[in-house]
């Protein structure tokens, strides 16, 4: 078995575990951060599967912008609702 395929498999197992953790975890901040890490690891998997364009987009948008947008909206909801 190819070494990069083995690496991708290990990453895939970590991604699935973290994706389940997002659903289970109690604090919403932790859930947002963990989903950002899922995107970051997914971008490495895309790179191993020879699609660097998608990896770039996933790293910039999935783990960078979306996480911060979630935090902005969470902050706004907490200050206006309660």
């Amino acid at each position, binding site marked *: 078995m190819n070494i990069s395929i083995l690496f991708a498999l290990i990453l895939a197992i970590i991604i699935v575990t973290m994706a389940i953790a997002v659903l289970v975890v109690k604090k919403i901040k932790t859930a947002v951060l963990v989903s950002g890490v899922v995107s970051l690891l997914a971008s490495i998997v895309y790179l191993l599967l020879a699609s*660097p*364009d998608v990896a*770039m*987009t996933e790293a*910039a*948008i999935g783990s*960078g*912008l979306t996480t*911060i*947008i979630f935090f*902005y*909206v969470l*902050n*706004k909801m907490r*200050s*206006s609702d309660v």
Partner: protein
Amino acid sequence: MFKKLFIIAIVAGFAVLLWSYLRHYSERTTLNDLSTYYVDNTAHEIGAANVVTAIVVTYRGFDTLGEVTILFVSASLIAMFLKSMGKEKSRNARPASLILVTAQKLLFPLILLFGVYIFINGHLTPGGGFQGGSVIATGFLLWLMANPEGHVPQNLLNTIESISGFGYVAAGLFGLILGLGFLDNRFMGLGTLGHLFSAGVIPVIYSFIGLKVGAELSNVLHHLNEIQNEE
């Protein structure tokens, strides 16, 4: 109880679907017909060293125009809904930490430069307008986190966005008039394969897309930052 059963049924359905796909899966050793066409003809038809870019900008250029339109509409809607109501109160935000401010001063120009590099070299190396634009927006996000109360040149962002959108459609129309069809890249001369000034109008279009996406995403982030100040 019923809801949980429903979810389990849906997950089991997906498992069956994926299993039936996996059972017949075998890795392709040859390209299929369409891919063979692209690989054989991109170099002399389009002149781009990056086949993915040739497909995205020229062969499937209309789809890219649609994507840009979708992004434009969603950014405009966000700007419409999150328009600040004028009753701003000072947030008295904690000043950003020294490490963040210092690192931002060093990294912000470098990240912008990297984004520009990605979209200018879109026809040679992996990447392109969307990737470069989102990298630029990430750099702007770093700046915004270091200066949450800083002045954002919003008119400049809007102007860049409008000019780039107009330029993209204008380049497509020039292709229709001077070349063979809408978004045809061959009216500017293909140049030498692998050089920076090659592949006709593709670098110009990708620069427009990169600037447009970067300005739009930065505008969205700016609006989201702005409403944090409101009551």
